[in-house]
């Protein structure tokens, strides 16, 4: 038995790992059993007394090893996961039990407040985006998880986030030139010259950019600028406040057989500065709802293909599965010339 301690030496004997290596969200603390209460909103489950006694017997022998997941709400400590273990621990007459505060559950409480406010006051996209941004950073939870909590799909969340991620757009949103996430997405996809022109006009007239303005400019194909297919923008979008994207928008692009595009799934929202990813043939990502686009990029016949993504889509993909980069042969970035120059400098340095 001594070998355990031999092998791991000091580390097995020491107390806790050094505090610097602890992450607050994961920290296990012990808490008085009586301070914790079950979630009254949980559908009451029936707890088999015999099994509870078995669990209590194990706890008497080895303590409760797996912490109970809790959240704090209005000064109360409420069980998120582990009511059975909590009951068994009481049965085993444990005074205190290990608990971990659930960041997700805590974020959910916050979000519930946000949603309540949103329903009452009609929270603007920009406000919602800021709240999400804060929660994301504070609780280290992904956009996808937040989307689930807020009942919005990935595309809607990433579109919202465009409002706060891009400083230029954030500025315009604060000014009131851009009024909702969908407009931001349309705006971001425009040529920088057109963007500047629209902004100047809007500022002069003290009006917000309208969907018609943005869509009209969008409709004109811009030479040598591969554009995501607006046809693919999901009709499932219910951001509210903004007009839906119409089907006829994609017509101009449909005639461009060389356009880099493909099924872009439900990450459909925002087309900001555009990059295309050239790589191995890729399958449709997730979306089962859309039919495959009729025309193919000619390059595909030779075993490779290309895909144009918005930055948000790209970061989603990457967040989800960083491995896919390994099969990609090259990535083309599209942005204003200043940024391109800066990025190319930075690449040369590193």
């Amino acid at each position: 038995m001594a070998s355990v301690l031999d092998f791991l030496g000091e580390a097995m004997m020491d107390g806790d790992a050094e505090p610097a290596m602890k992450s607050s969200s994961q920290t296990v603390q012990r808490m008085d059993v009586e301070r914790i209460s079950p979630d009254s909103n949980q559908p009451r489950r029936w707890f088999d007394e015999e099994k509870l006694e078995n669990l209590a017997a194990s706890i008497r022998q080895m303590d409760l090893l797996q912490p109970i997941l809790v959240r704090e709400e209005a000064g109360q400590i409420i069980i998120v996961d582990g009511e059975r273990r909590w009951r068994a621990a009481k049965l085993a007459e444990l005074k205190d039990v290990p608990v971990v505060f659930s960041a997700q559950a805590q974020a959910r409480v916050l979000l519930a407040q946000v949603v309540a406010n949103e329903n009452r006051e009609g929270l603007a996209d920009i406000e919602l985006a800021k709240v999400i941004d804060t929660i994301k950073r504070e609780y280290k939870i992904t956009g996808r998880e937040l989307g689930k909590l807020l009942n919005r799909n990935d595309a809607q969340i990433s579109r919202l986030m465009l409002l706060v991620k891009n400083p230029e757009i954030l500025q315009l949103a604060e000014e009131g030139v851009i009024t909702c996430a969908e407009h931001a997405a349309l705006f971001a996809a425009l040529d920088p010259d057109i963007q500047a022109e629209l902004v100047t006009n809007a500022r002069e007239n003290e009006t917000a950019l309208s969907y018609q303005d943005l869509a009209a400019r969008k409709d004109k194909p811009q030479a040598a600028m591969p554009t995501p297919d607006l046809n693919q923008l999901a009709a499932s979008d219910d951001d509210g406040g903004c007009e839906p994207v119409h089907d006829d928008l994609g017509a101009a692009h449909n005639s461009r057989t060389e356009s880099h595009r493909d099924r872009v799934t439900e990450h459909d929202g925002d087309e900001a500065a555009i990059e295309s990813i050239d790589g191995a043939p890729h399958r449709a990502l997730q979306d089962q709802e859309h039919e495959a686009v009729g025309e193919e990029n000619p390059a595909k016949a030779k075993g490779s293909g290309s895909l144009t993504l918005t930055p948000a889509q790209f970061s989603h993909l990457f967040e989800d599965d960083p491995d896919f980069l390994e099969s990609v042969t090259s990535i083309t970035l599209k942005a204003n010339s200043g940024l391109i120059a800066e990025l190319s400098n930075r690449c040369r340095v590193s």
Partner: protein
Amino acid sequence: MNIVTITNQKGGVGKTTVSVHLACGLAERGFKTLLVDLDGQGQASTHLSGDTAINRRPSGGAELLFDREKLAAGITPLSTPLGVDLLFGHNALSRIDEGERSVSDAMEVRDSVRALPYEFIVIDTPPAMQLRQLAAVLWADTLITVIEPEEKAVAGWTRVRDMVKAASAKGFLVDGFQALVLLNRVDTRIADQRSAVTRMKAAVPGMIDTVLTARQAVVSTAYSSRLPIWQLKKDKVDADYAALWRDLPNAIGLTDRPHPNFASEAV
């Protein structure tokens, strides 16, 4: 008989990949090997058997190890194409944690589990520290905790260590029990990870530092091909990387026996 239990305190660090590859590596060295999948997701079971719905089978899998009567009557694990026998993981295994069994049950079956006719039993565990994980520790000769070089991992490892200490204090561990920490290094180009590796090495003497890189695409390819990494076609995987996985049983000291391909390569 050597029972090797693989744990972690966080999903996605490569625990299941390590379990499957250790089991395959041992089987290919000629050892009679059983993989016990205590994880209800049954990913290791799918990798070995090819059955993607295996975890929806209600019984006939890893729960058998907790059943004294069935053990006494003799259990028949599944045979798999990769030469490893399998007690598969399935959803209903969670009942074990929910009070269907107790620590005493786990201790009572230990001798029968250890008397199963295998040279190696590799046990993949669920990431929660409940009875299934504890039982697998109590039955084990070797406990391998797979961690990634990140700050949180040490906190997770500390909890495994505390469990081992508590079990040790009660005299619940197998004689000769040893605990290893397998650092599944992800990317040393990331400064964060470099410093975490340095600190972990200082905090955990004897830690085995590998570059198994659980997130490599080749791991998914191996999973979907239902093969161990070293059996993938040469154009799919770097030979050195494949050899790292293949020789893992030697690297962590489970056996001195080289893989059959090891000798032929040297010629």
